[in-house]
């Protein structure tokens, strides 16, 4: 029980700090620290994403960032794909699914590095001062 809470908390902090989605952290956390199978971890991760996405959406909506009509359409139009994706996941063996997920993690890591390097030092909180423009 403590393990699950720690996985959630840690994954949440990293997700918020680095702008990475929660799912890519929940799944390995559930497999490595909680001993779930790849299928169980992916399914459980989807459930764990729901409260995170709800609270995030409410916050973003307060700032007026959510294009509500598009979000609703996107959400509804994605359901067939989501059902097909789940069916596909369940048609694959745990080993294949796990390897594919590991590849996804490496891609996310590469993107994170590229984004970080592209941002450069201007990532500093605004008004970085003259030092910010030096490099």
């Amino acid at each position: 029980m403590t393990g699950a809470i720690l996985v959630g908390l840690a994954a949440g902090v990293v997700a918020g700090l680095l702008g990475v989605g929660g799912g890519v952290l929940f799944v390995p956390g559930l497999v490595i620290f909680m001993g779930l199978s790849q299928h169980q971890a992916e399914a459980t991760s989807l459930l764990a994403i729901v409260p995170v996405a709800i609270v995030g959406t409410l916050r973003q909506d307060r700032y007026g960032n959510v294009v509500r009509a598009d979000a609703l359409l996107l959400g509804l139009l994605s359901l067939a794909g989501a059902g097909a994706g789940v069916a596909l996941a369940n048609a694959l063996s745990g080993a294949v699914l796990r390897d594919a997920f590991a590849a996804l993690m490496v891609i996310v890591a590469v993107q994170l590095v590229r984004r970080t390097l592209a941002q450069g030092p201007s990532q500093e909180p605004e008004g970085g001062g003259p030092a910010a423009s030096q490099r």
Partner: protein
Amino acid sequence: MALAAEEGSHRSLRLMVIGTLAGLFSGLFGVGGGSVMVPLLMLWLGYRERAATATSLAAIVFIAAFAASVQGLYGNVRVLDGLLVGVPAVGGVLIGTWLQQRMRSRSIALLFAAVLVVSAVELVVR
């Protein structure tokens, strides 16, 4: 008028393609699908990053809830674990975004990328 309608259907079509791809990705990998939606919303519909992220987050509520339900039919969802992970994660995200505005996350991002790769290897060889 006709032009606007055509543009509207064009837009819906694009949203449908984005939604379908995101849904497939989400269902297959157990993730939200934001990494599919955000770049496509920006590329195809001219969204700014902030709006793209926020709008995809709202769509993820539907996608993840539905995909989790379907996974539930397969008997794969560990409901208690899901809640024990998901609810504290809400607090974690709030802490993370708070930190993000106060510190330089550059080296953390690079370090974390390494952790991701190590975890990926751990997943495969374990």
